[in-house]
């Protein structure tokens, strides 16, 4: 499979001192979805911001390596030019314009396009997300978490991008909503011919839709591969994902023991939690 976006051995430093990415390489397949997996603070968002050249506002800089899009280096490009060339980022936490209406948010997504008429694009987004259509005149800040994520994805579609970078779309959403969102992403990838790079902590869900995955730990890629191989890889299971059935069962058991101990002899409500490292969704 050919890659539309290639990140080649990039290093990123914040404040000229904090070395956060220590050589990250990854490829986003054309018309496919790649996942970038890892826990808190490993450098997923930094990688995505490096691609979109959004590091400057945070006093970060790429000190080594290259980012190539359709074979051309993106280093030093203005963020607006990167968007115009077809790479759109849905930032962590959705980042909707809270005081703008849903429709104004969508219009803002089309900002980089020069064409005048974006009505058909609005209708297309409302087709994918009918709930947004119903709330088009409402301030975005009052949408539910799931609706906000849909609006953020819809806003990306308005730019007619070739590549969408998604930073933790599952964050703070109930599992059923995550499933729904990921299903939409898969459909979009097929119907709209966009490629995606999906940064996620929620590896279990993410692996169900991606064709290729990279696992990150403290600024490095520690494991990579097509998803079916990857799920079997030992590193993944041990270092972070905790996704096999036995593993989960084992953890849940340990959790119960711990809680019992903490709650004392009378005991409290026992609720086994899955995975200790990731966020609860």
């Amino acid at each position, binding site marked *: 499979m050919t890659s539309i976006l290639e990140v080649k051995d990039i290093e990123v430093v914040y404040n000229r001192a904090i070395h956060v990415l220590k050589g990250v390489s990854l490829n986003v397949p054309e018309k496919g979805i790649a996942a970038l997996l890892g826990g808190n603070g490993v450098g997923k968002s930094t990688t995505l911001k490096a691609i*979109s050249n*959004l590091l*400057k*506002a*945070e*006093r970060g800089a790429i000190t080594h390596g290259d980012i190539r899009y359709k074979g051309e280096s993106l280093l030093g490009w*203005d*963020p*607006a030019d*990167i*968007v*115009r060339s077809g790479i*759109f*980022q849905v*930032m962590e936490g959705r*980042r*909707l*314009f*809270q*005081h*703008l209406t849903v429709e*104004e948010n969508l*219009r*803002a*997504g089309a*900002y*980089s396009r020069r064409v005048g008429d974006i009505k058909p694009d609005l209708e297309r987004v409302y087709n994918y997300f009918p709930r947004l259509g119903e709330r088009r005149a409402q*301030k975005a*800040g*009052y949408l*539910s978490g799931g609706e906000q994520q849909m609006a953020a994805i819809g*806003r990306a579609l308005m*730019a007619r991008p070739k590549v969408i970078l998604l930073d933790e779309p599952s964050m703070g959403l109930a599992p059923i909503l995550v499933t729904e969102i990921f299903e939409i992403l898969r459909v979009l990838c097929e119907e709209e011919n966009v490629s995606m790079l999906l940064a996620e902590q929620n590896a279990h869900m993410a692996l169900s839709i991606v064709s290729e995955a990279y696992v990150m730990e403290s600024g490095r890629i520690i494991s990579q591969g097509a998803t079916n191989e990857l799920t079997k890889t030992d590193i993944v299971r041990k270092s972070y994902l905790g996704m096999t059935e036995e593993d989960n069962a084992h953890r849940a058991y340990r959790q119960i023991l711990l809680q019992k101990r903490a709650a004392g002899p009378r005991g409290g409500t026992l609720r086994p939690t899955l995975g200790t490292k990731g966020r609860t969704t």
Partner: protein
Amino acid sequence: MNELIYAIELTITGLLIGSMYSLVALGFVLIFKASSVFNFAQGAMTLFAALSVVGLFPIVGFWPALALTIVAMCGVAVFAERVIFRPLIGGAPLVIFMATLGLAFMLEGSAQIIWGTQPYGLDLGIPIEPIIIGGVYISRFDLVAAGVAGLLVLLLVLFFQKTKIGLGLRAVADDHVAAQSMGIQLRRVWAVAWALAGLVALAAGMLWGARIGVHFAMSLIALKALPVLIIGGIESVPGAIVGGLIVGVAEALGEGFVGSMIGGGVQDIMAYLVALLFLLFRPYGLFGEKKIERV
């Protein structure tokens, strides 16, 4: 009955003058919304614009003077964006604030070099004799000035709501990193915000200048805007408008009723008294932007 008419007269005068306070405050709001910076140079920009108009007026005539000043204010905007914002992106807000302080000195300094320090009069040709409606005297000049201020505000609101760059401005005001992530160019938006603030400064400078003369104390007009911003909320366009009107009315009524009893001088402290009340009971201002928080 006479008391009532007097009160109505004072209120109307207050509203008219207040609209000019609104105009001055609006300049601050524009830049604060776009970049979260309190632009200390707004007063200096007002002075600079007014001086430029009165300075060029006798040489080239009124309309060319106005046009040249508009160009100059846009130049100031581009300069401010290049020299202050672009290099300081991501810097501490205090640093950027200090830079606007520097800009204020630069503007005042160059105004002094070009036009000297003497006061100028500005005659816009608006008749001074008041009109009388039902026994109430209304200054014709204040009426025209308020009309101009109102028109300008209306145009600004339309610009924000109906144009693409207006949408960009509002998006940047809401979340500038997110705005940047979708290809909205911060530089361009900032330059436009500064240019708008410059045009507002020009309007305010001309109206105030025609009313009280153009002189260096004009840059202290910023001190009038401060209570307006406290009352209205520094991020709010409607806040600047309503805040200005409140200050205007409070000053007029205070001076007219209390001032006449204790021998004047109430006008200057009224604005701050009202602002103080707001600080105590409504610290984020009338329309201060509340964070939208869902429960």
